[in-house]
């Protein structure tokens, strides 16, 4: 009897162990902070600390060959803050350029007398890869952040300020543009 019981326990345990898959699903949770966006705020040039909507704003980026990407990051909305993806191909100093097009609706309408206003900003930074977890692997943060607005005949962005020279998270803004 006891020997029988022993055999039963043995077989039972064997089956339990053999069928128990202990591989937990390793999925990177969306709540985990990974590679951050660059957060830009728009403030009023006349009241430097007050937010001011950029009217009908559209934003596009450039690819590695500095060719404009037709897909929009932001498409024709009124907003006082934007989140932009930064390009990286290693841990060497990198530049991302963005087209910030204000009054997009004036470009889209049929009126030849009104048009949108395009400004291009240049963002320089150094990507740094930081280990997050098994599921998420590495994220990139960005250090030594700097920004400039490319001058043209009719800039709508008058002034820029770097609030945080390190882009580490998305909880606070990194850059203020005043217009």
């Amino acid at each position, binding site marked *: 009897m*006891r*020997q029988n019981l*022993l*055999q039963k*326990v*043995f077989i039972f*345990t*064997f089956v339990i*162990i053999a069928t128990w898959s*202990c591989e*937990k699903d*390793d999925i*990177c949770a*969306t709540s985990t902070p*990974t*590679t951050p*966006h660059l957060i830009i705020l728009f403030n009023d040039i006349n009241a430097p600390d007050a937010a001011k909507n950029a009217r009908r704003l559209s934003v596009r*980026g450039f*690819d*590695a060959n500095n060719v404009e*990407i037709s*897909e929009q*990051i932001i498409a024709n909305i009124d907003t006082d803050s934007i989140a932009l*993806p930064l*390009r*990286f*191909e*290693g841990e060497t100093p990198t530049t991302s350029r963005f087209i910030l097009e204000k009054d997009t609706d004036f470009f889209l309408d049929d009126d030849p007398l009104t048009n949108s206003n395009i400004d291009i900003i240049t963002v320089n930074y150094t990507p740094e*890869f*930081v*280990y*997050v*977890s*098994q*599921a*998420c*692997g*590495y*994220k*990139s943060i960005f250090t030594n952040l700097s920004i400039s607005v490319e001058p043209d005949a009719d800039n709508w962005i008058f002034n820029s300020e770097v609030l945080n020279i390190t882009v580490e998270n998305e909880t606070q803004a990194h850059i203020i543009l005043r217009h």
Partner: protein
Amino acid sequence: MKHKHTSYCVISFMLLMFVSLTSVSQNNTITEQDTITYKQKYGLRLGIDISKPIRSFLDEDYTGLEINGDYRLTKRIYLAGELGTEELTNTTEYLDVTTKGSYFKAGVDYNFYRNWLDMENMIYGGFRVGVSAFSQTLNGFTVYNTDQYYEAPFTSTESQEFNGLSAIWAEMIIGMKVEVLNNIYVGLNAQLKGRITEDKPENFGNLFIPGFNKVFDSGRFGIGFGYNVSYLIPIYNKDKKVVLGQE
């Protein structure tokens, strides 16, 4: 097994007759004649964890071997230990890592199973302290980026090696060992582990620790299973006395 049952019946029957005889004589004290003596083997049991070579054969990302042994100290207590080596390559969408190293575990097993007659099977619980020395090689990684605006996310294929890592953990083990042939045992066990210390490589983490198995990001606990085949080298015998009527 069958003839053991039979012999048990015969012996019990004889004992029963003996008991009835002695009871007739109204003798309440236990004398030498009231006990039956069995030989109990004491010795060193050596084996391997067969799941590791089998996995090495089936899974090209894994190679491992473990030698285990126990030494019977008393009727129920065994000194036990494991010595092994493992290599595992872990590839996910974002990481490609090879961990390589060896481990040693030592502790004590306690046999809960009350064997009858001359059998020496085990259902046991025990504890171990484990230590592992290992290295991790990051073969490559893809930076995690939720934003897919630009081309494919950046992938690094530069190999980085993190050497001289170590970890210490404690584990509780439960298992069983059954004698299938004379002196040959098969066993299985489950281990619950808790990390005490671990060297974390700089700007990286341990995904796997030899002997400890998978490292969970969520905590210090780990699990493991073993399937053993072992051979008992009998060193000496001890008599086990079975008192009549008290089996």
